[in-house]
């Protein structure tokens, strides 16, 4: 017997992992240099990034914030950083930022759009975040009227009377409902609202105006609106109205009632088939021809109507997708519970369909907000229209990137935060177990 053992008796002390298997080196090996092609791609893209930064950084670092014209800017840069130095002239944004925000809104009345914007945030809060008390929703409902009054001025009586139309309609609905059934109540309510708006609202508003003269603000004409204020006014109104309209169109398209279905399909396909710009041209050239002689209503209102209709058609298709994705069992279960059509839609179908379509709905909102820039083509002064007019100014003639960059940045922030919010909403509403 030998007492020679070929088996080690004691454990080796653990060694650290090889340098190539830990830390940044391993990460780089796996994520940057895993193959020849990958290494090549890494080097090329890194070089591109470095090159871009090397060009952009001095441009930012040499930027000028205080100057009266582009020539002055260039002189200051040349003086400070040498003859052939490049530098941004952000002075133009400093010079014109009020215009970028408010357009040509009278400067002594800037508090009105500013207040509207703050109120917008307050009105959005209960819609966006579930932590905010539900009672705030009443403010969200009253908000459009208040903002109309704040921005355009005039008497508060007009918005009040418009809102009163809804109250009248609801009152009639309540009165008719128990005696004549829900359909007649609906028709009666709608008719009462329309009659109120067309025949009674005007005189009542006039009366209110004489009783309460202190509720009148200095009116501001639409043509003085501009900048991001204009984008937000058009975008927010379009967003607010296109969703309900889209829901109605989607329900109509799936209703199975031949005539209603045909009307909805015709409308949706027509709107989706033509570019928004042609609709805006119709709004600016043709809408007056379609309306009774002598009517001439506000260009911004016309644009808002067109943008809303345009967006509603896309929204309808999005929501239709959500409706189609629901299993038939949901519809049948709602029927089995004895819910009527509107109850089933409101309590069972729509909450689920809307949840499914959230990402696409928000994408529609984003594209609507981006599309507000098209009003520059019918000569409204939205941010892009302003850029064109500033570039035509002799002081700032020749300036390009500072302006486009600024506008692009603001749009990017708005749209990107919308998409981030949609992801948050998706997570919050996810009810399945994962």
């Amino acid at each position, binding site marked *: 017997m030998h007492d020679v053992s070929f088996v080690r008796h004691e454990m080796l002390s653990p060694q650290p992992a090889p340098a190539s298997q830990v830390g940044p080196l391993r990460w780089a090996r796996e994520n940057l240099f895993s193959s020849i092609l990958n290494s090549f791609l890494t080097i090329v893209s890194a070089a591109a990034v470095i090159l871009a930064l090397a060009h952009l950084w001095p441009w930012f670092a040499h930027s000028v914030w205080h100057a009266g014209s582009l020539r002055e800017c260039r002189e200051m840069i040349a003086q400070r950083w040498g003859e052939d130095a490049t530098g941004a002239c952000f002075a133009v944004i400093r010079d014109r930022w009020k215009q970028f925000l408010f357009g040509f809104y009278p400067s002594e009345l800037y508090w009105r759009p500013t207040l509207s914007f703050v109120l917008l945030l307050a009105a959005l809060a209960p819609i966006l975040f579930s932590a905010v008390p539900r009672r705030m929703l009443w403010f969200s409902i009253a908000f459009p009227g208040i903002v109309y009054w704040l921005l355009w001025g005039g008497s508060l009586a007009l918005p009040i009377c418009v809102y009163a139309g809804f109250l009248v309609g609801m009152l009639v609905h309540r009165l008719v409902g128990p005696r004549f059934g829900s359909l007649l109540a609906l028709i009666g309510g709608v008719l009462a609202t329309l009659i109120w708006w067309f025949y009674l609202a005007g005189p009542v508003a006039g009366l209110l105006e004489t009783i309460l003269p202190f509720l009148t603000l200095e009116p501001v004409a639409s043509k003085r609106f501009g900048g991001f204020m204009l984008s937000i006014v058009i975008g927010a109104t379009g967003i607010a109205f296109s969703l309900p309209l889209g829901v109605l169109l989607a329900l109509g398209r799936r209703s199975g009632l031949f005539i209603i279905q045909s009307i909805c399909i015709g409308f949706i396909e027509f709107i989706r088939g033509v570019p928004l710009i042609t609709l805006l041209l119709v709004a600016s050239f043709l809408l007056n*021809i379609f309306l009774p002689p002598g009517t001439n209503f506000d260009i911004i209102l016309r644009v808002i109507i067109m943008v809303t209709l345009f967006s509603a058609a896309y929204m309808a298709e999005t929501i239709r997708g959500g409706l189609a994705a629901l299993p038939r069992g949901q519809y049948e279960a709602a029927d089995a519970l004895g819910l009527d059509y509107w109850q089933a839609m409101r309590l069972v179908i729509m909450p689920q369909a809307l949840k499914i379509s959230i990402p696409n709905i928000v994408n529609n909102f984003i594209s609507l907000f*981006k599309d507000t820039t098209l009003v520059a083509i019918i000569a409204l002064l939205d941010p892009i229209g302003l850029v064109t007019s500033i570039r035509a100014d002799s002081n700032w003639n020749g300036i390009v990137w500072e302006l*486009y960059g600024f506008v692009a940045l603001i749009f990017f922030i708005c749209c990107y935060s919308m998409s981030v919010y949609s992801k948050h909403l998706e997570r919050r509403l996810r009810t399945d177990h994962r």
Partner: protein
Amino acid sequence: MTSIDVSREQFRLSMLLYDTRYRSLTIQVVAMIALMSAAAWLVNNTVENLSALGKDFSFRFLGQRAGYDISQTLIPYTNDDTHARAALVGIVNTLLVAFVGCLLATAIGVTMGVLRLSRNWIVARLAAVYVDGFRNIPVLLWILATMAVITDTAPAPSAFRGDNATASMIFGSVAVTNRGVYVPWPIFGPGWQIVVGTFLLSVIAILVFGRWAKARQDATGQILPTFWIKLGLFVLPVLIADQIAGRPISLDYPELQRFNFEGGGFLDKSFIALTLALSLYTGAFIAEAVRAGIQAISRGQSEAAAALGLRSGRIMSLVILPQALRVIIPPLISQYLNLTKNSSLAIAVGYADVRATLGGITMNQTGRELECMLLLMGFYLILSLLISGTMNWYNARVALKER
């Protein structure tokens, strides 16, 4: 028998409202009446307004002399031609942008979508920056910015002059200037029909060969090097025919003359800016569609394919792509439609598309807003329906055949 005979039940007027069998009919009739009266109201208003303005409704202006010049035309046009001809020039220009834009956007989108899924960190990040950047900034801004890039950074034609010129032509044949891009252009000499005919024949041969190779593979399992054979079929016959016919097709190179480049083909900067911006913008959306499509295919599919012994290229082309395509195509259709409709923003850079000729200068000159807008919308509507029809037909062909 006590059963109630429903059909004999007496019809009462109130049943139109309370009986679900008749109620839908009532609703539809009401909707129809409302629609008709709204339409009648609009038409009536239009007729009244037009007569108040002293206008009539006619398309005769299309036959009148247009009297304006269009800078970029694919079909012959002078300012003595009719408005209809000007509209046609615009239509061709729109179609050109839409076609080139869709091709370019697809190429960009597919590349970026695949790169975004790359395991290479920096490449994936750059692709994500591209996608988010373009998706979240208005397309009009991109069009204007692209135009500004070309105008501001490309050299003027005069920079190509002299011994110490600051700019030089790419490969000695393509000149990128701040007016546009000058490229070599083919000249068709006598006998060109032979070459073009050979080319068409070789394309047909490629298609036939592809079918035959697939049938052979399905039958025997043998795989031919189809790519190289197809490439040979594509290139060789045309080259040989060109030589035999005495080189009828040659290239006309742009050359710098006194003020500008002459000869060759000229792509106006407005066309380049519009097409490039639209393709980059739409490409970002297509990239997202491609990424979503590839991610929709479960990992099990590629693992199963690998277990069968397929190499990664074949896994992509035989297993992943055919399945991903079904997910990708519907959003791709709507992106093509969007690009086509967005091409109407040509006005921002002064490109003469149909919106700029028919819906712009013609409309302003003749004052026929109603007729011009009707024609313009009709054109876009037909174009959209054609595109979506074609793509839906293709989609139905590749769709999963279930029971």
